[in-house]
């Protein structure tokens, strides 16, 4: 016989963690509400602001035109930005490959796998900050951008690569070691062939990130390229329509990149 209890059955147990989460959410809601009541609106009405923003967007994207830059100029600037992304990705990938080999737990000795700690610190600092840090030595410009972006790419790719290496079957390494193969032979004959698809897809992902960062760096660090033109068009000339057309340029390339990435991944999966 089933005894009916009077109280409802609780599905979730109430503990300290849920209490903390609920209190945090409550405080956040209160702070947000308080914020809206105490903002200094400087005489702008929220509704008018939204309408004006909408109008700006419409001008930007429905009436794009060239005025200070020509089509050919923008294309060449786009290639500068792509070049920056490719260069930093390749530099980062080449260095990361070797660092990841000595950082992977299944390939490295205990001392060299300490690299992971250093790499984690590099990764924790955003790319823009690294560029600005190197700008102290190299001056604002493309050199600082290349070094800073490569630096953060290394931080990212070493982690991605070394984890790909760790995914591989330890038995294969054991088998080759047992036949008297050296470490480098094992790396080139077993580790790299086994993890190549992962390496390629991580590298490509980083390239996509580096492209967007390269756009931002053009403006923020004066690295040139299409990002710098956009900065000039918006802040210097205040030409919304030109900002619009530059955005379309970048959008076009981003879509091309995405299409290519999807195809590449499908192809890799077929071979996997």
């Amino acid at each position, binding site marked *: 016989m089933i005894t009916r209890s009077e109280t409802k059955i609780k599905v979730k147990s109430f503990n300290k963690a849920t209490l903390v989460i609920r209190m945090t959410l409550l405080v956040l809601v209160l702070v947000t509400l308080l914020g809206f009541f105490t903002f200094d609106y400087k005489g702008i009405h929220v509704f008018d602001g939204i309408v004006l923003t909408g109008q700006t967007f419409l001008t930007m994207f429905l009436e794009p035109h060239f005025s200070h830059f020509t089509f050919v100029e923008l294309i060449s600037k786009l290639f500068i930005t792509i070049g920056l992304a490719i260069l930093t990705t390749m530099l980062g990938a080449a260095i990361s490959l070797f660092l990841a080999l000595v950082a992977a737990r299944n390939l490295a000795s205990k001392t060299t796998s300490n690299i992971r700690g250093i790499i984690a610190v590099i990764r924790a600092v955003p790319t823009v900050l690294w560029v600005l840090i190197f700008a102290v030595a190299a001056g604002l410009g493309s050199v600082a951008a290349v070094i800073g972006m490569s630096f953060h790419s290394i931080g990212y790719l070493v982690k991605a690569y070394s984890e790909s290496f760790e995914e591989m*079957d330890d*038995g*294969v390494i*054991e*088998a*080759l*070691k*047992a*036949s*008297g*193969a*050296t470490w*480098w*032979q094992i*790396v*080139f*004959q*077993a580790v790299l*062939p*086994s993890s*190549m698809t992962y390496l390629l897809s991580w590298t490509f992902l980083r390239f996509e990130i580096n492209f967007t960062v390269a756009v931002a760096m053009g403006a923020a660090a004066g690295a040139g390229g299409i990002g710098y033109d956009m900065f000039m068009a918006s802040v210097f000339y205040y030409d919304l329509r030109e900002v619009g057309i530059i955005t379309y340029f970048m959008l076009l390339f981003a879509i091309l990149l995405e299409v290519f990435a999807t195809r590449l991944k499908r192809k890799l999966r077929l*071979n996997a």
Partner: protein
Amino acid sequence: MKALLEVRRVSKKYGNGSTALSDVSFSIQEGEFVSIIGPSGAGKSTLLRCINRMIEVSSGEVVFQNVNVTKLGKKQLKQVRRTIGMIFQHYNLVNRLSVIENVLHGRLGYKSTLAGMLGLYNEEEKKKAVEILAMLGLQDQIYKRADQLSGGQKQRVGIARALVQEPKLLLCDEPIASLDPNASKTIMDYLKTISTTLGITVLVNLHQVDVALKYSDRIIGVNKGRIIYDGVPREMTSDMIHNIYGSETGDLLFDLGGENAG
């Protein structure tokens, strides 16, 4: 006949204090087919890996072809390892490479680091690899990727990789534990052929008592890191098997059959 391999008072303790092997001694003659049987966790795999020092022994010594393996430097150890082939339960092939590339991996120990890295094998080595593959009935699979093969075929590639090393000794760690009975028989038959026709000494870890009884010249029974039986299959008794596995009569799925019956 001379002793190819001598294991003298080998013990292995792991860092956590557990003992995998204690005071194990035996010797193996050239050309012998020896099986090691025993329950899971008895130390069979550890014993096998102590021979080519994939695992370092805690005490005792392993003498292979009159060389004390336990005392060797890195370089000489590699030279010893290339004369000892190893076969694994999970085949341990590089799945994304072709059969022939996997087989040629057995030659890496003979090559310079650079030539090995780039996979530059000479014609003689390739010819040898193809010959061995044909001997194992894999002549039609040479350019297939390793992951397209069946379990039995993969294990034959594993054997080919070991044979291309031109080994004196073949260490087989549960070679048929992941295979169906048909493939198991094929693999065991090949191992037996290798032992009798090529004169290569075979040391194999097995879970299947009946297989060990059928194929081996000698059986070593291991329990809790100690050797408790070392002799010919003919003298193996049902009691002894229960002793090795620590089981009671009727608990085990095997049939001594024939001359061992009773």
